[in-house]
């Protein structure tokens, strides 16, 4: 029920706008997100835009994630093996890591 989908705002009036996802358009209320501008990506929940998607932040989160994966764990940690986490797709352990 917390289903909220990112859609792009393609046009708007004072109260509502048209949002689009992969060619599907719907009318969305902007009552909770009056500052949204045409071209913005917004999160749509139950027919209302509830927030804007910050593309820079999206990229920053991914960059942070990849940075964390590249980091070595502090030395002396049991179970990490030589050279730290060595994270990467080739990193062997098959044990159900992929959902």
């Amino acid at each position: 029920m917390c289903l909220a989908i990112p859609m792009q705002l393609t046009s708007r009036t004072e109260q509502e706008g048209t949002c689009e996802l992969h060619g599907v358009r719907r009318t969305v209320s902007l009552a909770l997100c009056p500052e949204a501008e045409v071209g913005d990506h917004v999160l749509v929940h139950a027919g209302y835009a509830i927030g804007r998607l910050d593309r820079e932040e999206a990229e920053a989160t991914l960059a942070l994630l990849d940075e964390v994966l590249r980091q070595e764990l502090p030395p002396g940690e049991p179970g990490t093996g030589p050279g730290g986490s060595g994270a990467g797709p080739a990193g062997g352990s098959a044990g159900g890591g992929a959902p």
Partner: protein
Amino acid sequence: MTGPDPFHDRARTQALGERIRALAAGLPRPVTFMEVCGTHTHAIAAAGLRRTLPPNVRLVAGPGCPVCVTPVDYLDHALALAARPEVTIATFGDLLRVPASRRDSLERASARGADVRIVYSPRDALQFARAHPQRKVVFLAVGFETTMPTIAAALAEAEATGLPNFLILSGSKIIEPPLRALVQDPELRLDGFILPGHVSVILGADFYRFLTEDCRVAAAIVGFAPVDVQQGLVELLEQVRNGAPRVANLYARVVTAAGNRTAQALLDRFFVPADTRWRGLGAIPRSGLVLRPAWAHRDAARLPVELPSPLEPQGCRCGEVLRGTIVPPECPLFDRLCTPEHPVGACMVSSEGSCAAWHRHERHAAEVGR
């Protein structure tokens, strides 16, 4: 299908899984984390994430499914209203099959002739009320802080456009009191939370400061892709290892520090916290929202109806599932008397309920060989 999505990336998923295992290996004792939001429970089950965790990291599902925590007497009240000839019940689809007392439900009431309509938005209910001025449209306001602002916005629109026949029956819940209660639960001994993503869009990351200052538990706000949840677990493990709990915002692409001020203001305009009962958790002080007295004319609870005495289903252990103290298969009714086709408790009906998620994705784990 629709192109590669970096948040569903298989390589990152594997790397994060290894990272989690490496961090867990350095823990002095087992840890227990809880994901609070029903949508997270669903996403975690669909990705089979629980199974990939090392044995000393336990991830339990919490009471963040608004349908699951709706008590039986709320449904009874909705059914009593539905029996009034001038009432149209407008509801999100999730509530349709939730059992009320004596195995009744909105679905059955509809078959008996009650006017029950499924809507995807409170605006649909507003539109119906406008088109049918002779009907009293009662919207079943169930949800957390993601959904309640949309209902507040609908009420604002009803007020602004002079629409007298749009009312709500409030069954909403707010997130802070149960979080505090769960932290204090001696059976659970929680070390950290995976915090809800979309509730946080409304409330803002700063809202959860009490988890650090008062409760001293680890916390991370994350999105809904498997990679997001795993990233959250890595963060929680590091907070625990370093003994430095904080609220990490890993969903900054939509969650800001302050949250959605417009939505918060609308909530405050129409609602005020009140003591509320949660299915399975009992009464939690100031844990739900009710309409302020000024909006009494919008409150469907004021319509005169006869309410039966509520009857919880026999043998149902939804409460313990919601608290995270048992997993669904430990309920004796699970997959025997209680199935998605014939649900006994709310946790099995809602698509976000722990029992429904488990039944769909996890009960055949051994067979599927994951």
